């Protein structure tokens, strides 16, 4: 159709390489994502120019925020006079953590944002950072970067099972005046254009994502909020049990895709 042909379409067969490392942007769906045969990173659906930005860390605008986090990591803050580096000398020690997040501990989902704020309030005597603020998103990206290229693998059994079920239920629930579920767009229609947007599977392996649209790093819960508002639904709160359950469920649907933090999206 003529009008859609003018959009710079993504090359859906392109493969993502960053600094000589090859990423898994397409693979067989895990068995628990029973309605999908294959899973794709959101990178696959972006226009060529956007895709290219992510292939070089100097061009990737997300790295400006990684630099911010490198400074924050060394910065003393709070009543205990400590910096992150006082207790965690090598940030590389966090390798693997992002790929397994969120995780369930004592029956509760724990996100990277919560771990970081726990260290700030409990170990540093510093103020908690805002969930989607620049400092938090930057630090989440910096810790996440240590796992870049590793396959996503979250635990969904045992303690995690009921929370995963809750997330799954939310994923298939219709909300808002437009009365749509996440699945309507991201499972039934990925690959299709919805007006000017090329629908992806809504995977979260790239988060935090740098978006050209708002020129900042975007948190997972921030994106959930945006999608809910678009269907004219009252979003759940960032950090809510609902969004954490949804995050666990979505992470599990992306099992096998590689961590792309910080990725670039439009």
């Amino acid at each position, binding site marked *: *159709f*003529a*009008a*859609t042909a*003018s*959009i710079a379409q993504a090359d859906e067969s392109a493969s993502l390489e960053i600094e000589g490392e090859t990423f898994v942007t397409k693979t067989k769906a895990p068995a628990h994502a029973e309605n999908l045969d294959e899973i794709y990173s959101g990178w696959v659906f972006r226009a060529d120019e956007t895709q290219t930005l992510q292939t070089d860390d100097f061009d990737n605008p997300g790295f400006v925020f990684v630099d911010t986090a490198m400074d924050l990591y060394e910065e003393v803050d709070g009543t205990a006079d400590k910096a992150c580096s006082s207790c965690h000398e090598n940030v590389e020690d966090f390798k693997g953590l992002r790929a397994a997040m969120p995780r369930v501990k004592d029956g509760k989902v724990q996100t990277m944002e919560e771990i970081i704020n726990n260290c700030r309030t409990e170990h540093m005597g510093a103020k908690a950072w805002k969930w989607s603020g620049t400092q938090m998103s930057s630090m989440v990206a910096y810790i996440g970067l240590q796992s870049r290229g590793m396959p996503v693998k979250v635990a969904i059994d045992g303690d995690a099972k009921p929370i995963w079920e809750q997330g799954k239920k939310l994923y298939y*629930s*219709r*909300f*808002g*005046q*437009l*009365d*749509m579920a996440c699945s*309507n*767009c991201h499972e*039934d*229609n990925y690959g*299709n*254009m*919805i*007006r*000017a947007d090329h*629908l992806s599977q809504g995977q979260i392996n790239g988060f935090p994502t740098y978006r050209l649209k708002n020129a900042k790093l975007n948190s997972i819960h921030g994106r959930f909020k945006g999608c*809910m*508002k678009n269907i*004219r*639904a*009252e979003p759940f709160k960032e950090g809510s049990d609902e969004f954490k359950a949804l995050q666990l469920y979505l992470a599990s649907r992306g099992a096998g895709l590689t961590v792309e933090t910080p990725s670039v999206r439009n």
Partner: protein
Amino acid sequence: GVATAEPTPAGKVQFEEGAVKASLTGQAGDVANGRKVFKNRKLGNCLACHANSDMKDELFHGEVGPTLDGVSDRWTEAELRGIVTNSKKTFEGSIMPSFYVVDGIGRPLKKFAGKSILSGQQVEDVVAYLMTLKEQ
């Protein structure tokens, strides 16, 4: 449409196998306004999902639903009114929003709570516009 009937509130519309026979407002639809409602992103936003050759000048036609070229050759006016009013009565489980429905909506944003996406007259206008889409 039927010129004398009372307007039917959203939620009180009578369906017969997905179709709605009488005008929702008792008034005829306005084709020109229906065309506007169809493409307006805050109203019908139908182009989000449907391509429509009659609107070639508009960028970005979606691919989620079928093209609406020639749609009035495939459906009667009553059927089209039913589809736009409540798409789920014709297409079970559809992604297509129901444009004149107020019940059973989960967590609507406050400013939209209790309101249908379109007014009854806007639905009539869109239906009148759809009736002009014929195979060449």
